[in-house]
């Protein structure tokens, strides 16, 4: 079990760290960093599905007969791009939030909003 599944478990542990960072931190930049870790862990989970013992990269060549499965790779290529797109958009929002609130901290910004609402 350990030898055949440790790959998955390490990905799960990384995923937990990423998820914890996203959920616990109120700093918006840190949240996005956590989100990245979380997503990379998921990518690892996927990629490990395609691996085959003794296989090689799925580039057909007369020298090889066993290839890892290409489909997870394709899916994760897509997912990586989605990830960077999300990060970019998130960071753009962080910059704007910092301009509008003077902070990159979600909780501080919420408090600022509440104060503003009380004043009016």
């Amino acid at each position, binding site marked *: 079990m350990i*030898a*055949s*599944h*440790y*790959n998955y*478990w*390490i990905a*799960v*542990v990384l*995923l*937990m*760290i990423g*998820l*914890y*960072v996203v*959920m*616990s*931190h*109120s*700093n918006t*930049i840190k949240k996005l960093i956590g989100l990245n*870790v979380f997503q*990379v862990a998921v990518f*690892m989970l996927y*990629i*490990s*599905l*395609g*691996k*085959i*013992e003794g*296989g090689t*990269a*799925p*580039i*057909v060549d007369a020298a090889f007969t066993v*290839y*890892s*499965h*290409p*489909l997870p*790779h*394709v*899916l994760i*290529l*897509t997912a*990586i*791009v*989605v990830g*960077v*797109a999300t990060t*970019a*958009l998130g*960071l*753009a929002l962080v*910059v*704007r939030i910092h*301009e509008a609130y003077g902070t*990159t*901290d979600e909780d501080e910004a919420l408090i600022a909003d509440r104060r503003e609402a009380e004043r009016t």
Partner: protein
Amino acid sequence: MNGFVWIDIVLFTILAATAVGLARTRQLFAAAMLSGLFSLTSACIFVLQDAVDVAFTEAAVGAGMTTVLFLGTLALTRSREKVTPPRRSIPAALIAIFTGGVLIYASTDMPPFAAADTPVQQHPLTQRFLDDSMTEIGVPNVVTSVLASYRGYDTLGETVVVFTAAIAVLMLLGRGRPATSAEPKPREALPQPIQHDQRVLRVVSKLMLPFILLFALYVQFHGDYGPGGGFQAGVIFASGLILYALVFGLDAARAAVSPAALRRMVPLGVLIYAGVGFATLLLGGAFLDYNVLDAHDPAHGQHLGILLVELGVGITVTAAMLMLFYSFAARGVGR
């Protein structure tokens, strides 16, 4: 147990240490760098697991582009975070542990890692992709044929995602000054020209730049035969120009590739990709059915189609990545 296992263990240890360090540090700059390291290490693991294309992309995108964006943001904001109070950390830990627990539970019924008889390997898809694709499409890199043809529609969607991010960031940050500035300029923004005395850096960069761009073109057009393709090429091309901007200043880069041109290139790539789809429709085939592109030789049609859509991807990704960089960088200059 072969030698790979030990490499695995070393890499996983680095990964775990990086992740823990990144979670614990309150220096956002350090966290961003660790996140880059994390991506790079995971790229190594992808290589070990035969996912060379993914590794390539993760290294370029995760370690390269994402880190640049993080640093760009940090230059505009502040780099320390507050201490996380227990009222946030305890529920978060519970959720993380629960999610992880469910996954561990799930993994107990997952097929053994790297076994040959897993459902994934046994499914007819495997044979189709690995054996038949050479006759159907004729591209040795199966990842490319799956990406651009079998699942070409997903890739169109993916290009659209990049396009979306680019216009969203353009909409949010624009290319001009911020509307309101909450606090005075915190410190030097990122892409000022590096001082003249750093001559070595300038010369070396200038020397490297053509090679980077050439390599990007190689990656773009050699994707059929080796790892690579539009995404990787696009990111590399953009990184080359970002390097140029870092060393010679944003204005120099903008003179070389103007933001206006980028604004046209981003949609152009998507248009090329979708245009291929509509062309195949008009030629009487299904959407993105490259076979109809060449009435006599379907395999040639596939080649042509893949070339075109990869070109579309490359254009959009290059332009989008560069545009993202410009947007963040220009925000800093404007202040």
